[in-house]
């Protein structure tokens, strides 16, 4: 009997190692170590042809305050925030209505939201070049109406349209599952206690779906910040966003330490938003 105890313990350890060992081993080598490298590069001097020289320095961080880069950061935060807000304004009513549809239509409406998301990201961006071009359908339509064509492509508006198009489904899905989970009786209770529909929305529906709102915002805001393709293709390279800056530090300027600092900043924003999301989930409480 005593001999079986260690055997069972070994069996458990073997089970753990056999199932999680390969996966976490892989993730350690190809994700954690690379992330640690990037993190460590933030405090070293740049090498002349990429890479780093192992001399500690704080100048990579102070360069963030350089007006040249600060403008880029502020500008990209602004565009990403506008995109997120628009996604919320379009996404919330859409998610709300989908949650109210009969089961059959619900599935169709959800698949229809996800479908464009499964098509190639570059193709989706390219579609907007075609759409917004000075001779494209939108301007042709304006001309046909006897109006002056408008410059649409290579503007901040085009970047926002592209980002919104790329990430709107990521806003709608968490919103949908948050609204779907809401107990309809809570809205009835609110009306029963004398609240008009608008008041019920602000006091009950919105606070209880806030975790979904914040999840959606994380899913839209963070990748918008880090995107470099859309600013390049739809913004014509005039507007540089954080994503472009990071790419350039690694592939053109060869300033890996500064690029690492910028990447760290994006990760910091992500972590901050995730904490906000966790806080909102706790606040919304478990169901009554």
């Amino acid at each position, binding site marked *: 009997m005593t001999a079986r105890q260690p055997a069972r313990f070994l069996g458990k350890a073997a089970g753990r190692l056999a199932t999680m060992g390969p996966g976490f081993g892989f993730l350690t080598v190809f994700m954690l170590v690379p992330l640690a490298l990037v993190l460590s590069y933030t405090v070293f001097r740049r090498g002349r042809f990429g890479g780093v020289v192992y001399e500690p320095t704080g100048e990579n961080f102070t360069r963030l305050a350089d007006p040249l880069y600060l403008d880029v950061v502020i500008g990209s935060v602004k565009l990403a925030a506008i995109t997120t807000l628009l996604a919320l304004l379009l996404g919330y009513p859409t998610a709300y209505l989908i949650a109210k549809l009969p089961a059959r239509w619900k599935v169709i409406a959800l698949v229809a939201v996800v479908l464009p998301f499964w098509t190639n990201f570059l193709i989706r961006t390219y579609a907007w070049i075609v759409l917004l071009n000075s001779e494209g359908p939108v301007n042709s339509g304006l001309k046909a109406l006897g109006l002056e064509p408008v410059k649409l492509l290579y503007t901040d508006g085009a970047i926002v349209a592209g980002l919104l198009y790329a990430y709107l489904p990521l806003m709608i899905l968490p919103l949908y599952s948050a609204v779907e989970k809401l*107990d309809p009786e809570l809205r009835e*209770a609110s*009306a029963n*206690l004398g609240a008009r529909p608008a008041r019920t929305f602000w006091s009950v529906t919105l606070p209880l779906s806030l975790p979904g709102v914040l999840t959606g915002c994380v899913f839209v805001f963070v990748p918008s910040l880090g995107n470099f393709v859309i600013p390049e293709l739809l913004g014509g390279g005039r507007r540089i966003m954080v994503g472009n800056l990071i790419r350039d530090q690694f592939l053109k300027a060869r300033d890996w330490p500064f690029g690492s600092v910028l990447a760290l900043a994006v990760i910091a924003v992500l972590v901050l938003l995730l904490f906000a999301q966790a806080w909102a989930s706790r606040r919304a*409480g478990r*169901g*009554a």
Partner: protein
Amino acid sequence: MTLISIDGVSRRFGEVTALDSVSLDIRQGEFFALLGPSGCGKTTLLRILAGFEQPDTGSVRLDGSDLLAIPAHRRPVNLMFQSYALFPHMSVEKNVAYGLERERLPRAEIRERVAAVLETVGLTAQARRRPHELSGGQRQRVALARAVVKRPRLLLLDEPLSALDKKVRSEMQLELKRLQHEVGITFVVVTHDQEEAMSLADRIAVMNGGRVEQVDAPADLYERPRTPFVAGFIGANNLFTGKVTEKGLEVDGLGVLPAPAGPVEGETAMLAVRPERIRLDPVTEDQGVLRGRVVDVSFYGGVSHVALSLAGHDRNLLAATQGRARVETGAEVVIAWDADDAALVPTEVSGGQPS
């Protein structure tokens, strides 16, 4: 004085008729119950009163004015939900204050009234807690306080005791009655549990298949059911169907059974005899109408139940006696009751048969 007057209300959901021209009066200050099996339409009626549902036809008046014209959030009617529907992101006091804030009352008054109602339901110490930190009984008190604090003309309670365990139930039952007495609000409780309805309500409307079968005080429902459904639904009953004659009810295979004077002679009727009204005597000579054999005797402390088989009757008969039964399984007994202790129910009036 009539508070709520429901007249000819019908509601269909596709193929299903939830309410079939229901008419009811609910009096000012009474404790009223809507009782019936699930699917009888009682919840639909409740939702119509609260304003979450509109009837297809019929009218509902409160104090003589049209209630259906008022949107849900402006009705002087509050509902205690079966699930309680407490707002999970608000504390107990915020939940209770929510309805008062919608009336734009001064803050001081809201604070005062919330404190007073929490005192009444004994939750002053839990005012800052969130719903998920409370026990089932405490949550129910919050739901009750939240509805009562609005001082509605009518308070609706949807299966108020169903989610509580047995011990808390009887406590809450007393508390509900005390509260209703204290605040003087008209209560309407919806339930499928007849004990709940019988113990709480002044009057009960028994519903079945979207119709109101009978409206009466609990004791009258028990003693004088007016439809076969009510006779079968309320309490245990021994039911016989037969033809009304001068001497009683003539049942095929059993003979003429003692029955009170009632419907017109020659018509079909149902006779209902409560188990506790049945006398069991040892067989002597040729006395008594019915003879039966004891199938089973079970002792429940205060009372004993005796199951009897009757020749010529497909169902067992149930008799209840105080204390220990004086008969044994297998014994042959004479079964008897007084004609006036039984109830005779016309079967033609309602199509509803107890299942």
